[in-house]
């Protein structure tokens, strides 16, 4: 983390240097406005900019964290579904088939009709990932915010428009969560698939049921493997939460943009946001490195070295 802090400092210096070097650079420095805690026109404070920034940071963290909860849980389920390669047969009750037939998802066995639920779940998970990864996040945000309330039944739409608490924030959380779930799903799937087939066979051979195979063998190993990419997905949510400004959420980027518009001190405002984004990133990465070290498997250099 020391290194992270060092880098932040260095980057700012480099940036300042670059800008300073440019020939025709004239700029009215007003770093002090970042400490405005109340309106004071003489000091250049049109608003309590300091609190604005804090508030923006709070919303950024709140939106990102809440969205991550959705993304992680939903993404894990979808990722697991995408790794199902064996049929999950469910018997259709009460109905018997007089003829024999068998397709990819429905078939008969001695007159009993069985449906392969796994085929549907797998298909659903595939479609989910494809759809959410192939539409720009900003477009998804507009769809949820402007279009979705019109598509649902009238009463539900009215509720969304009138009674949804913190409508912009809630929509942003929901949208970011669903979008990021598709990325988490890909990591989970890749993690599970990177485990050698022999491990799965060994788990099955000692008599574990399919659910137990995932619970005791595949998931504990694959989640360890994917800590680094999941960390970068979390940082992705954190950064992507800035898109929420387009529907009016006053998160960090929006707040600094607002300060720039009020005070013309864009350099100072954007620097503040930049430092905060980098700071949070450094903290998260440091924390995840500790987590990774904690759950590391003794004797293993790299789990992916299969």
């Amino acid at each position, binding site marked *: 983390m020391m290194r992270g802090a060092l*880098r932040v400092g260095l980057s700012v210096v480099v940036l300042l240097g670059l*800008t300073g070097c440019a020939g025709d*650079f004239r*700029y009215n420095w007003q770093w002090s406005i970042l400490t405005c805690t109340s309106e004071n026109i003489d000091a250049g404070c049109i608003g309590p900019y300091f609190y604005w920034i804090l508030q923006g940071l709070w919303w950024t963290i709140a939106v990102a964290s809440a969205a991550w909860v959705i993304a992680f849980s939903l993404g894990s389920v979808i990722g697991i579904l995408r790794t199902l390669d064996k049929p999950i047969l469910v018997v259709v009750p009460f109905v018997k088939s007089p003829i024999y037939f068998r397709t990819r998802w429905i078939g008969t066995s001695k007159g009993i009709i069985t449906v392969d639920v796994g085929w549907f779940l797998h298909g659903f998970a595939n479609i989910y990932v494809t*759809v959410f990864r192939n539409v720009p996040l900003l477009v998804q945000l507009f769809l949820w915010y402007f279009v979705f309330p019109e598509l649902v039944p009238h009463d539900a739409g009215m509720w969304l428009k009138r009674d949804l608490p913190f409508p912009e924030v809630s929509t942003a959380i929901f949208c970011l969560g669903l979008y990021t779930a598709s990325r988490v799903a890909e990591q989970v799937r890749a993690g599970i698939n990177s485990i050698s087939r022999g491990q799965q066979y060994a788990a099955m051979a000692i008599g574990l049921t399919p659910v137990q195979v995932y619970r005791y063998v595949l998931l504990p190993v694959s989640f360890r493997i994917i800590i680094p990419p999941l960390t970068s997905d979390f940082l992705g949510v954190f950064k992507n*939460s800035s898109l929420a400004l387009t529907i009016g959420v006053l998160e960090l980027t929006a707040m600094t943009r607002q300060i720039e518009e009020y005070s013309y001190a864009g350099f100072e405002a954007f620097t503040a946001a930049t430092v905060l984004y980098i700071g949070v990133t450094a903290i998260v990465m440091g924390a995840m490195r500790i987590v990774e070290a904690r759950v590391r498997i003794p004797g293993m250099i790299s789990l992916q070295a299969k």
Partner: protein
Amino acid sequence: MESGGFDFHIVFHSIPFLAKGMGLTLLLTVLGIAGGLVFGTVLALARLAPFKVLSFAAGTYVNFFRSMPLILVIFWFYFLVPLVLGQEIGAFQSVLIAFIMFEAAYYCEIMRAGIQSVRVGQAYAGEALGLTYPQNMRYVVLPQAFRNMIPILVSQAIVLFQDTALVYVVGLSDFLYSADIIANSENRLMEMYITVAIVYFALCSWGQFQVRNLQKKFAHE
């Protein structure tokens, strides 16, 4: 808000306007990829270079840009570029510079991973045959690294294509913003946004399909 059914007539009437927006989106994408690739390659070589100062500077650059939201980067350059140059050069140029600087950090990481994905034994084998460092890079390491990278580079191109939608925040008339103008002036938000989503989905899915073909192709060889 309007009530009752869809009316997609407006979409057909605005095709020329939307196409112009898509033109800008594609132009940004292509220039962003080209610039990002060139600058990203330079960064990757710097990162892997045996000179501490160079690799540290490149590493700092990459970590710096990867910690920032693209929107903030766009705001930064939109604000900074005219200030530094002392004159307005237009939103498009500012945003393009932002994209190139931002995407270069990601391209750099892809290249670095690609080069590092080549097994060390391969480099040793090349050296053992008496190849010089540049020869070894040129004939042994880079050809293998490049094959590993291509699908990921194309995936990143799709990400960049989607990212260009963010120029919305500075009001540049790309595909999304053009649709937005019509959506608001004609009060047809649903139709326009759904259309935009479908077009993006179709193009990106096509791209994904190409990526999968590439992966299959390389897996077979």
